[in-house]
């Protein structure tokens, strides 16, 4: 359907084009043509965004103000009760807390490790490509797959889990990594799995930033007596990486906010209550309990939070102006 209408347009276009070019004054006609061509290019995307982005949000606003238990259509006006209930729901508040704790661990750790890795890899020449590939390769892995390895093989709570076998060498009793909250070892599991998977990606961005630094800066610094080591890092490298650093920090926070896969798969055998980020809790409410009005209210609260965060970062960084 779409393709056939596109080809007819092509014909009309090619036929009409020379004429339109010659006669400049007839703006009206050419603007109609421009309109048609514009919508041929952009129409499919806008239609899709309308159906799968804008309408869902608007519809879920409607749902969130209504009782929609176990049904997808509103049944009676519920006012703000869904929002009220969600914001005072200890599980939801706890899930926001889980996100905060996760972000406090994962964001600085990813930042420091990715920067360190980038500096290290960038400082060698022989086999640099090999090391870059090796550190980047975990990005080929899905979070589900990584969860399998982490949960079943490395941090298995039984005696045959690898981590526990290593501990056994030091005569330490097996640890129930993801089933105990005292101490909360599951954070070690959840944080390391994400570190392993995404460090390489951020390293790539840092290396790109490093290679964009003009070598003259280092030469000038060498003339001034700063040669290698901490000083050039402190006064040249790090300030020059400002853009990469900021975008990596922000991407990290937003990615942590969307954490779902590894929490869903690692914290899934009755231990989910220990660490349940917002998206996992909303899955429970909407898809398991079938309470779509309540789930929609939760999704909209999360949307609001992330929009505020985005606007705030735009304000701080002056996005839009720079473009």
């Amino acid at each position, binding site marked *: 359907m779409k393709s056939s209408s596109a080809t007819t347009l092509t014909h009309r276009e090619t036929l009409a084009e020379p004429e339109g070019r010659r006669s400049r004054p007839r703006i009206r006609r050419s603007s109609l043509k421009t309109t048609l061509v514009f919508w041929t290019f952009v129409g499919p995307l806008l239609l899709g965004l309308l159906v799968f982005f804008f309408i869902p949000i608007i519809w879920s606003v409607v749902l969130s103000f209504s009782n929609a238990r176990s049904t997808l259509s509103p049944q009676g006006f519920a006012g703000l009760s869904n929002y009220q209930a969600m914001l005072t729901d200890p599980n939801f508040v706890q899930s926001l807390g889980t996100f905060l704790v996760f972000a406090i661990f994962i964001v600085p750790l990813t930042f420091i490790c990715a920067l360190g890795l980038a500096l290290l890899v960038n400082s060698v020449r022989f086999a640099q490509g090999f090391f870059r590939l090796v550190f980047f390769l975990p990005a*080929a892995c899905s979070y589900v797959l990584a969860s399998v*390895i982490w949960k079943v093989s490395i941090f298995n709570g039984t005696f045959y889990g690898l981590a526990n076998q290593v501990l056994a060498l030091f005569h330490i009793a097996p640890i129930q990594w993801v089933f105990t909250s005292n101490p909360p070892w599951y954070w070690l599991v959840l944080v390391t799995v994400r570190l392993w998977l995404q460090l390489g990606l951020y390293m790539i961005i840092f290396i790109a930033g490093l290679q964009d630094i003009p070598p003259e800066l280092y030469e000038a610094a060498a003339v001034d007596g700063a040669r290698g080591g901490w000083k050039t890092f402190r006064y040249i490298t790090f300030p020059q990486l400002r853009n990469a650093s900021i975008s990596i920090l922000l*991407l990290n926070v937003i990615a942590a906010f969307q954490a779902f896969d590894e929490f869903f*798969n690692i914290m899934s055998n009755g231990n989910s209550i220990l660490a349940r980020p917002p998206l996992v809790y909303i899955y429970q409410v909407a898809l398991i309990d079938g309470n779509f009005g309540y789930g929609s209210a939760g999704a909209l609260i999360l949307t609001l939070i992330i929009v505020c965060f985005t606007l705030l970062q735009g304000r701080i960084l002056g996005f839009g102006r720079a473009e």
Partner: protein
Amino acid sequence: MAAITSSGRLSRPRRRSKPTKQIISLTLRYGVLTILAVIFLFPFYLIVRNGLSTDLDITSPNWTFFPKSLHFENIQELFSDPDVPFLDGLINSAMVATLQTIGQIIISGLAGYGLARIPYRWANLVFFAVILTLMIPSAVIYVPTYVIVSDLGWVSTLQGLVVPGIFAGFTTFLFRQFFLSFPHELEEAGRIDGLGYIGTFWRIVVPNSTGVIAALSVITFISSWNGFLWPLVIGQDPSAWTIQVVLSNFLNAQVLNLHELFIGAMIAIMPLVVIFLLLQRYIVQGYKQSGLKG
């Protein structure tokens, strides 16, 4: 060792006073890199090792680096296991990732070009709508999207898995940025030859943008193959499970069939490892351009 010293000689000539210090520092760096490389590769090794072992080897209290024997028959066992829709999952994932990549690239490429080049009165307003979608990650609004898609009757269908992921504001934005810097002269040449916008786009712009198209295609494919949340939500019937959902169900089953789980994981990641090794250049370029997509 020889390689290390030779690369040491390659590095910028410094004052000759401390060559030993330089060698030590270089050796140290390669030492740390090698240790880290082993750590990073270790989980891949675990998948292969456990996948080709018996459950007895996997759960042995005396873990050995190399299992006593390799069991390639695990592969056959997995595919013939009636309880695990593994082959269906592979086929679903391949279809979803391929269709989503093709659809997303075509639609975003067209829209990106239209927004970059066609002087339409409301183009800025449309662009603003696209930018608006960038503020809200699709994962955050999966419940609202699910509600609409299930109203369309698309739960547990291929179109339900594929279509919502085709419309990507971010890919469109990246295409637009790329086309903005596309050389005008080339397009002018097309105009002179009598090509309209569509002809210019198809005959001139697309053939000269294969790099960016390849880069964005390959990272779209990767994130689609590895995607979990949307397939989990929409693929409720086992026949509509993608490979990630199959593995997740497998992982959370009451009784764990360890060797099948790991051989499944190994097969699920193989296509992507091949893609990474072959198309590394485009993947790196794609991630650099997008910052980070998924």
